[in-house]
């Protein structure tokens, strides 16, 4: 466990040195300030559009950050040659996978928490409030979805270079966000092979829409029931474990050749 945490901490240090997180945070802040400065007929007190847009941007940034951070870790280690001293240490390949995943996930989750804090601060500054329990649930489910994305990107990065892993991760997670929830609607007018293909896609790809609680938070529906909440957490945990297991299976017998460029 110590070794896993050490690997995660190394990733944290690397991320803190980079400017990515700060740039995204500043960008989000700038966007929120722009939103609140819109003159809407001189009326005041409207906050839902700020919260809604803010949370949407937080989801987009979290998605981008998850893929970029996790898809480059292993290829970067290989490209720099640091994978050799790493594997020479008494650390198993499974611990490397889990440690890298843990570091990437916690970094992205922390960044997402900072995004949420900024959004809540802006909403509170306009004398409005968001249900704290619903907000906490929304954040936890968001973090669970990020765990799945990080593990998926990590899986691809075990065998592909960082660009290919990133691209494939973006495509698959993008399809999961945008296409998968609408498959039942598409199937109404399809038959035969296209319908089978869509059904296969529906069951193969992750369902990120079940992690999305923005509507509840923004439109003040209150927290969701705890039973389905824990079911979603369990679903996310199972998916994450599955992808990490596949990543370990892909990584454990991988041969590293000195001088081979991975990036």
């Amino acid at each position, binding site marked *: 466990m110590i070794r896993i945490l050490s690997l995660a901490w190394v990733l944290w240090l690397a991320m803190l040195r980079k400017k990515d997180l700060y740039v995204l945070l500043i960008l989000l802040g700038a966007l929120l300030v722009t939103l609140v400065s*819109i003159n*809407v*007929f*001189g*009326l005041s*007190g*409207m*906050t*839902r*559009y700020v919260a809604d847009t803010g949370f949407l941007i937080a989801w987009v940034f979290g998605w981008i950050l998850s893929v970029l951070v996790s898809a480059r870790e292993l290829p970067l280690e290989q490209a720099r040659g640091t994978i050799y001293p790493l594997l020479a240490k008494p650390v198993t390949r499974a611990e490397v996978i889990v440690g890298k995943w843990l570091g990437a996930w916690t970094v992205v989750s922390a960044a997402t928490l900072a995004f949420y804090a900024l959004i809540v601060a802006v909403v509170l500054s306009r004398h409005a409030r968001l249900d704290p329990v619903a907000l906490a649930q929304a954040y936890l*489910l968001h973090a669970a979805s990020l765990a799945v994305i990080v593990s998926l990107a990590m899986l691809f990065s075990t065998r592909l270079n960082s660009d290919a892993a990133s691209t494939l991760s973006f495509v698959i997670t993008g399809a999961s966000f945008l296409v998968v*929830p609408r498959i*039942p*609607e598409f*199937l*109404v007018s399809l038959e035969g092979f296209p319908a089978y293909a869509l059904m296969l896609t529906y069951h193969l790809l992750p*369902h990120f*829409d*079940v*992690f*999305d*609680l923005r*509507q*509840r938070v*923004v*439109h*003040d*529906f209150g927290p*969701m*029931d705890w039973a*389905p*909440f824990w*079911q*979603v957490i369990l*679903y996310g945990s199972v998916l994450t474990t599955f992808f990490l297991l596949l990543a370990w299976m892909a990584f454990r017998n991988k041969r590293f050749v000195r001088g081979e460029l991975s990036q």
Partner: protein
Amino acid sequence: MAGSVTGRTVIGSGTTAFLGVLSLWCCVFILSCGLSSSHASLSGTKTGSVAAAFLGETRMALSGNLYMTADLYFHRGVGHTVNLAFRNDFFQRLKGSASPSLHTHLARYDVSEMMPWLRLATRLNPQDVETYLVTAFWLAKESGRPDLAIELLTEAQVENPFDYRIQLEKGRIHLKQKNYHAAADALDAAIAFWPSGFPDNRDTRFDRASALLYRAMIDELSGETDSAVARLSEIVQLFPERQEIRLRIDALRSGRQPSHLAAGVITDSLAFEDSERTTCHREDGHEQEGTAGHRHETGEQAGDGEPHSD
């Protein structure tokens, strides 16, 4: 030799840099001239917006999307019901728990939450009069700001000078404020501009009849009975089945006071139209467009069941 080569290299790189900066400056200068001239020409165009010029026809799609977002906000984030090949599987149940699908509306004091999206929609597509009308309706009614609604409609009028619907809506708002003089001016303009290029169908005739009815009631309040009778007669030509209008005309011609006073007719008609426009026509299992307050989607329902006017 090496020094001269170095000298040539230094001079060459410096010249290159200078030419690069110069060409970049020229490009920026040309671009700024182009933008300035296009902005100047745009001030004479209908949109008058540089953003609209950049976006082109995309702005209409964006504006429509923003309008639908306002509708989504009115329904607290719940989208229209769509046909699905299957329902109630594991993921759909989880999603139903995460994202409610109840058919509810914003509470009265929350209606202003729609306004940012409607404001953006009007900015992107100032020729979409329906968006202006819906926005003005909600500003006047639930947000309690008829002054802002009139301002908005004046802005719409600048972009769409001869659209009768804008004048009719202004007339309604002035009537609610009991500004009969301003209402009369707006209603006269609405009647004059009608049909503004729209087809002569039941919906547009209903609008003309509304404008004529309100104008006739203002005439009655001012004691101009002949003018009121003329306008009411025109309503009967549009809708011969309106017996209550015929009875009112008879009463006015014979010098009798109608049983339903003019002020009451105005109040009742406005209340009826408001209730029609705030009725949500979204039904489960059917896709319908538009935010409540947009009567024209109701089609068959428009024009039926007006309150008695005598």
